[in-house]
């Protein structure tokens, strides 16, 4: 008699548990109206927040002060992805850890090529494309070209467009809102980059094309308007970056090549002997000789790298070592994409001023 009632107790409990879980899961989903966006890197999350606004909840996997090449896949990342409606990644061979967690998450919506998968690098023209078939002896070469695309604000506009297309595919009912947000973001980038005057005169698209072809500054320096050279009308980041335009720098890794293209920095060499290979004594000795011969004043190092070799080089040559976050949230106070670019420009100006 006692046994029968105990068995009955367990059966009823199990039934109730099952019922509750079905109701519970349905309940949760029924009330979720916002789009869950997960990005591999913080900069994509920041841009996605501008495009989606209040309609999206964004999150990112890699930390801002973490090497994006080497992220340990963790179960919590896969859990993040099971609930994601949209997943944004560079789409080249930077985040080699992404396929593992996508597989683990088993979320059909965000498999590569699916509706909820955004490749941020689509339609972006890449630099540093390898001229020969790369093999391991050349170091950790990225086969498609340099994947650190977010370091150029002009690329940020194209990344935003790719995210826009993804959002519209995933939630077409809000397309109009996303379009407006996108236009506003592009406008903000243009005005932050060139300043209001030139954007009003020529429009952001024309100015961006000229930066990509390397002709903007010389154009502004030669053409006149209203009795003044156009260069005096340049505002925004490009104007703030004029003090270091044309200057030589040393970099730790090939992180900054798109930034250098836009802002006219000349990267002479890298502390890594080959991409992804830690600095060796022989190569660092050559780097020191180069710095002295070419009078390089500033060395740019992403803040996730080891500090020992840059500090030693700085101590030997007097070069100013600048440790900056490669990505959003890589430092406190750097919370948006705009904060990031501001941070880089301010710190570079500071370094060049200190180095005399």
């Amino acid at each position, binding site marked *: 008699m006692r046994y029968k009632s105990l068995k009955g107790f367990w059966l009823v409990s199990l039934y109730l548990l099952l019922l509750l879980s079905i109701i519970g899961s349905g309940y949760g989903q029924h009330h979720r109206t916002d789009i869950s966006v997960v990005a591999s890197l913080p900069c994509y999350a920041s841009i996605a927040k501008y495009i989606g606004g209040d309609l999206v909840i964004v999150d990112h996997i890699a930390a801002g002060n973490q090497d994006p090449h080497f992220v340990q896949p963790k179960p919590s990342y896969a859990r993040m992805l099971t609930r994601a409606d949209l997943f944004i990644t560079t789409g080249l061979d930077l985040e080699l850890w992404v396929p593992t967690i996508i597989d683990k998450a088993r979320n059909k919506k965000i498999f590569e090529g699916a509706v909820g998968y955004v490749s941020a690098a689509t339609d972006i023209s890449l630099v540093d494309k390898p001229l020969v078939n790369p093999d391991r002896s050349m170091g950790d070469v990225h086969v498609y070209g340099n994947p650190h695309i977010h370091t150029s604000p002009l690329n940020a506009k194209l990344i935003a467009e790719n995210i826009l297309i993804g959002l519209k595919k995933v939630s077409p009912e809000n397309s109009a809102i996303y379009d407006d947000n996108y236009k506003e973001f592009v406008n903000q980038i243009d005005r932050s980059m060139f300043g209001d005057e030139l954007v009003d005169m020529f429009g952001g698209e024309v100015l961006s094309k000229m930066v990509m072809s390397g002709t903007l500054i010389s154009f502004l320096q030669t053409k006149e308007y209203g009795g003044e050279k156009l260069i005096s009308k340049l505002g925004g980041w490009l104007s703030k970056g004029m003090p270091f335009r044309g200057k030589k720098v040393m970099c730790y890794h090939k992180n900054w090549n798109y930034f250098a293209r836009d802002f006219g920095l000349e990267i002479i060499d890298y502390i890594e002997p080959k991409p992804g290979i830690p600095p*060796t004594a022989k190569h660092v*000795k050559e780097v020191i000789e180069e710095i002295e011969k070419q009078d390089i004043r500033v060395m740019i190092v992403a803040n996730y790298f*080891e500090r020992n070799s840059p*500090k030693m080089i700085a101590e030997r040559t007097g070069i100013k070592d600048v440790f900056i976050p490669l990505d959003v949230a890589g430092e406190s106070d750097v919370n948006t994409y705009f904060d990031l670019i501001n941070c880089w420009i301010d710190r570079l100006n500071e370094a060049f001023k200190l180095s005399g």
Partner: protein
Amino acid sequence: MSEILIFMLPPFVACIAILSIHAYLGIHVLEREIIFVDLALAQIAALGTTVGFLLGIHVEDSLSFVFSFGFVFFGAAIFALTRMRHQTIPQEAIIGIVYAVATAGAILVADRAPGGAEHIKEILMGSILWITWPTILKIMVVYFLVAGFHWALRKKFLIITEDYEQAVLEQGLRVKLWDFLFYISFGIVIVMSVRVAGIMLVFSFLVVPAAVSMIFSKKWLTKLMIGWVVGLFASILGLYTSYALDFPSGPTIVCFLGISLVLAGFIKTVWIRKNRVVSSASLKV
């Protein structure tokens, strides 16, 4: 060639500084027959810097040294307190367990921090190649002070190392205090060295020169001299090879120290054989 020498001079001087005091401490350590205490304390020091690293304190900051030393302080206390005359658990077991737990702890802590894996690698391998003169000066001052401390109290430290039983009978519980002071001073040296040279090189500089010297002599001063010579050659060969072949310097020097021990054993065996032949030959006559 001279440029290479100038380039490698700071790492070389750093090696000599670390070797000087480690060879001496190593003779103590081998005499006490508790080899792993260095490895365990070095790992505890590394755990300290890793916890600091997680909290955003870079390894170069003085605060990192405080963290590191704080952990070593506790480790030293544990080791001194558990060195009993009659051991339920052998002290080697305690030291080994502390080493394993400290290593695991450091890995777990580093796992939470971005770039943690690189930090663990650096703690293990060291960064002696990138050392700068200000850092060398810092460690030399600390070593000098510790060496002075040990010279002033050399008799006490000698007694508790060489004849623990005698010391306990004569001085009772105060042996624990001297033991503690020994481990503290030892810990300070380890904390300074690990930040620069990494755990493997610190351990090897401690144990190998002293071990080689034990093969050839029983007198303290002779052993110290032999240890310094062995360490000097291993450092020179190690640094040069690491430069020529693009290897990390720390592990390369460790390999050369290992080779020197094998060579020493070989030389000793040949020398004994030669002596035996000579003496048996003289007997026949």
